[in-house]
């Protein structure tokens, strides 16, 4: 028996911000029903990889293949239609729409769908959202907004979900909750997940396979079991002291970017 073709394949992607080369030849694979993580410090290019997959940015070189179809350079709405969900960095919700309307927009591409069934599914995973369904999303707490963003992507009934730093800025209890949801979505819905995280401990616990990025390149890849035991990973991504310093630097950089 031959290996089935991966659900998602990136081959030699190069992506630029103007003259700046942010991604310098990245190749990776996500197999069906697997959780894959991309680790890396800030500015490594993780978000840019996700944006290139979903079509928000076009690569200069290389190709993106999803479900056997070449989707390189396709507009994001057409990529979403193929049941590829994307939860972007920073809890991007529609602040003046209610929580339920946010979810309904998530089902936009599925004209014939049974909206109530899908809503029930999302509320099953996130009971807090059901409680606040009539509240404008802007009034939800940070954790609830993150759950809403994930729920909205769920409404697409995705075969693959791109998750960009879902734990960013959340309290440890909520990080654990999100991690549990990721595992459950993968098991119960058979959904493949590409998880980008700075919280390497959480990501390595949850995922099956991992890639490590540095300045636009993949410098290491392996099963998460092996990555956890690699000396480099332990020193740079799992070291407690180190992480604290990185966290602070990261916020400084944030301010100058926006």
């Amino acid at each position, binding site marked *: 028996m031959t290996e089935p073709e991966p659900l998602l394949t990136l081959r030699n992607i190069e992506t630029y911000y103007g003259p700046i080369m942010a991604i310098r030849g990245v190749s990776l694979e996500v197999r069906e029903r697997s959780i894959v993580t991309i680790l890396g410090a800030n500015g490594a290019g993780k978000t840019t990889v996700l944006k290139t997959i979903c079509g928000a940015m076009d690569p200069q070189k290389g190709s993106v293949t999803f479900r056997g179809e070449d989707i390189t350079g396709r507009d994001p709405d057409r990529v979403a239609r193929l049941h590829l969900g994307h939860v972007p960095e920073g809890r991007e919700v529609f602040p003046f*729409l209610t929580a339920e309307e946010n979810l309904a*927009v998530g089902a936009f591409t599925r004209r014939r769908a049974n909206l109530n069934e899908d809503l029930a599914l999302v509320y099953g995973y996130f009971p807090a959202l059901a409680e606040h369904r009539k509240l404008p999303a802007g009034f939800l707490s940070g954790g609830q907004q993150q759950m809403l963003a994930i729920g909205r992507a769920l409404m697409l009934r995705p075969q693959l979900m791109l998750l960009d730093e879902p734990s960013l800025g959340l309290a440890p209890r909520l990080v654990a909750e999100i991690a549990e949801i990721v595992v459950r979505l993968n098991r119960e819905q058979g959904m493949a997940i590409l998880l980008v995280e700075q919280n390497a401990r959480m990501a390595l616990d949850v995922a099956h396979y991992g890639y490590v990025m540095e300045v636009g390149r993949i410098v290491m890849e392996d099963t998460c079991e092996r990555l956890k035991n690699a000396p480099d990973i332990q020193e740079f991504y799992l070291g407690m002291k180190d992480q604290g310093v990185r966290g602070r630097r990261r916020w400084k950089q944030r301010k100058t970017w926006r």
Partner: protein
Amino acid sequence: MSELLQLLVSGLSKGCVFGLIALGFVLIYKATEMLNFAQGELMMMGAFVAFTFVNLAAMPFLAGFAVTLVVALAFGMALERGVLRPMIGEPPFAVLMLTIGLGFVLRTVAVNIWGTDPRTLDVPYAGEVLVVREVVFGYDNLIVIGATAFLCGGLWLFFRRSRLGVAMQAASQNQLAAYYSGVPVKRVASLVWGISAAISAAAGMLLAPISLIDQNMGFIGIKAFAAAIVGGFGSLPGAIVGGLLIGVSEEFALRYLWPGFGEVTAFVILLVMLFVRPQGIFASLQKKKV
């Protein structure tokens, strides 16, 4: 007393026209962050197109109006697709100049097709009046108010209740997230321009029986812009309320202050508003993310 009522009604009807044009501005601004200074000219084109169908082609006026709305919708969408979309990513200033230029072009086109003589639109209700207890109301004014209320109700339902309307709101609140949810953001932008052009055309058709149609009637777009700011730029109800405020004030100023003052009322109100409450009547708390 009866004079006050009459002034109020004619002021409100004028204000409805300002408000509808302002609504067009705000819709486009919210969806695409572009300021369309050709909004008044879109109104003027609407009036001329209706004139063509109703007067020249002798269509029943309701049918003529309906066809005009469809033409305006298509025209607005084509405009976005052909002229504005290629400007995405250019500095806002360049886009602004482009829309001002567009206004010039539309006026020139109108002169070349319909000439420079003022025209009147033949509607069955022209000159008809409604007398209630010796107070005389022009049907033309009443119809402007009624039709505006009807249009606003329809738009409200569309944006609150329909799948497409909610998606359009989503796209204007967070474009990238809408894209990721599968909303075809580019086509939505086209549609917004179409709807905005159709609303302006409706304003033109409603105004035509009251004033005359000529290539310069679109200059009231400037007052509508003031109305949009007074209402709180970015607020749809604000656009209408700002329009009504300016329309009524202008009518009373024309009657009770010296006549020349009428024309500047809109800008006096704008100035006062910018001092007293710069965020406008309906402050929009919206912080945009793109």
